[in-house]
């Protein structure tokens, strides 16, 4: 096995890894050797084709359909130069103060996270789209919420030169989305940080990690030749995303002294709901996600967001099959879509495990409170669709495939809670959090508030795995804020950590 020596190794290049890489770039410029090891490929700009199956296969783990152990929920998370920031919609919110209080992590203060979030909001060109850039799918959501008296707000998003392709979740074909692949990683590389793609880390230790470089058959070639490699480093920052970071530490043996490793996983279980309008609306042109409704955030534990998905994803999120399913799919140009995010509790039993081969197993159960939230969200969404003018609505837990407009006053009755059946309705997650939670000590958490693994001075975690509970909003800005803290701690202690 080849051996290479670095001062700092960062595992993963998404919101966390990308932010850490850029913040440590001054060390690289000063002569320290820093490498980012990214499992996924880097695609050339013209390789973003917008073709759903092809892009999902190249940019997501398991094409965006990683299954939980009980197969009632799929998870979508990215595998690419830039991680999930390549495939998110770029919605950029700062974590609410109430959530930080609920996290209750000594050393984590709202004002600190707010300040760091503001830095990334500036750095990644976050702003609100002009009214003229909003398509019908988004405007109708706002109209429906206003008519019902629901609180709705516009998402700030991180785009530059957006051309309204609506293909954000397949990787922007226009290079407009300002993820770490566009901002932090190029800046880090310019300062001397190396980013090695197609490089999967299989084991991590106190001062080294083992990796395998392999060509996936697409994307640009890795800068390292294929094969196994041991990378020695004085500092290692694990930023592989909540699932893979926890799994990496577990298969490396850290679970023996960190009893909460992999536990308290939260997912923001999500549904995609559709309402059909009697006429064409603009939906698959324009940014897909411009508004959210937090009316029910505290009372019923869910958020509603605008969304627009592609044919396959849409089809799998409709309940049923056969002629009525086909009929609704053929109304694609008339569909309004809403994404529901349930705020799930952090439970010790919901966790990442590894199987005998060291592969992650996600043992997660949607409890009654989550199913209640999903049910209530369907009712609220149906009301919004009808208020916006839809002539019928498809609710996965509906008593019938369609709820017609004449029955709009009966949605409570026509969407029975008893029909919210895991394994029948499609539930997905793109907000995967926890498993390497911050806290006080090894008995209650994996890291301290600086992301440093308890008992391992040179080993850090810098991704959404740090969340001790759900963020209750779209999480990437918070990931970057926490990664910023990790990098600051490494910089401030570089003399000791990086001593020969």
């Amino acid at each position, binding site marked *: 096995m080849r051996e290479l020596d670095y001062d700092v190794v960062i595992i993963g290049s998404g919101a966390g890894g990308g932010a850490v890489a850029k913040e440590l770039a001054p060390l690289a410029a000063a002569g320290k050797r820093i490498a980012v090891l990214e499992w996924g490929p880097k695609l050339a700009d013209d390789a973003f084709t*917008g*073709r*759903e*199956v092809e892009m999902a*296969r190249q940019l997501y783990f*398991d*094409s965006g*359909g990683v299954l939980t152990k*009980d*197969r*009632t929920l799929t998870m979508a998370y990215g595998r690419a130069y830039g991680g999930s920031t390549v495939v998110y919609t770029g919605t950029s919110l700062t974590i609410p103060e109430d959530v930080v209080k609920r996290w209750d992590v000594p050393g984590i203060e709202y004002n600190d996270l707010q300040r760091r979030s503001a830095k990334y909001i500036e750095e990644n060109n976050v702003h609100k789209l002009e009214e*003229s*850039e*909003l*398509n*019908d799918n988004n*405007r109708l959501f706002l109209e429906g919420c206003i008519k019902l008296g629901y609180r709705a707000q516009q998402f700030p998003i991180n785009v530059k030169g957006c*051309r*309204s*392709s*609506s*293909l954000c979740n397949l990787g922007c*074909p*226009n290079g407009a989305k300002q993820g770490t692949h566009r901002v932090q990683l190029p800046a880090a590389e310019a300062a001397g940080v190396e980013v090695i793609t197609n490089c999967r880390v299989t084991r991590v230790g106190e001062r080294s990690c083992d990796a395998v470089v392999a060509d996936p058959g697409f994307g640009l070639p890795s800068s390292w030749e294929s094969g196994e490699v041991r990378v020695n480093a004085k500092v290692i920052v694990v930023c592989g995303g909540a699932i893979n970071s926890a799994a990496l530490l577990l298969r490396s043996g850290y679970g023996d002294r960190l009893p909460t490793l992999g536990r308290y996983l939260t997912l923001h279980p999500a549904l995609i709901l559709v309402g059909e*309008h009697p*006429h*064409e*609306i*603009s939906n*698959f*042109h*324009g940014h897909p996600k411009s508004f959210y409704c937090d009316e029910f955030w505290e009372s019923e534990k869910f958020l509603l967001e605008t969304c627009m998905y*592609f*044919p*396959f994803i*849409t*089809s*799998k999120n409709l*309940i*049923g*099959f*056969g*002629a009525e*399913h*086909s009929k609704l*799919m*053929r*109304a*694609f*140009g008339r569909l309004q879509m809403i994404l529901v995010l349930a705020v799930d509790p952090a439970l010790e039993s919901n966790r990442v495990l590894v199987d005998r081969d060291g592969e992650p197993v996600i043992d997660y159960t949607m409890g009654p409170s989550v199913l209640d939230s999903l049910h209530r969200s369907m009712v609220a969404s149906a009301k919004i669709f009808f208020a916006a003018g839809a002539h019928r609505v498809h609710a996965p837990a509906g008593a019938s495939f369609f709820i017609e407009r004449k029955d709009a006053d009966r949605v409570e009755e026509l969407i029975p809670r008893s029909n919210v*059946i*895991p*394994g*029948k309705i*499609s539930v997905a997650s793109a907000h995967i959090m926890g498993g390497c939670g911050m806290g006080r000590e090894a008995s209650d958490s994996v890291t301290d508030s600086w992301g440093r693994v308890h008992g391992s001075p040179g080993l850090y975690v810098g991704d959404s795995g740090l969340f001790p509970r759900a963020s209750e909003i779209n999480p990437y800005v918070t990931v970057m804020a926490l990664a910023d803290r990790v990098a600051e701690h490494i910089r401030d202690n570089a003399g000791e950590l990086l001593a020969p």
Partner: protein
Amino acid sequence: MVVAESVTPEIVSLDSGGRARMAAIIDAALMDRDAITRTQFGTFLTVIRLAPVLRFGRAFDRLDGDRKNAVLRWFQDCPVSILRKGFWGLKVLVFMGYYGQEETWSEIGYAPDFDGRAGVRHA
């Protein structure tokens, strides 16, 4: 393919190229899964084919359209979760094979454009 045609009736009218593309998409998706999942999928297909013998005296392939739908609906709503989840997985693969083809986009009116600004019109 008979089960797939009941899940998405338009598959009946796919030409040989469309069927080949569909099979390729499904095969690729299955090959990305572990061996256990692939085996479970094959077993579940056999269960769907043969389960109607118990109720209708015929295999799935030989049922009329209404009875095929009744069988699939039974699996969809089945109180036995492993059968319910199995059907969910099956229909997801069929949908992927059909709606994942660029060639079917025009059938449903999906026409993405890298420059969609002109399409952001207001109804």
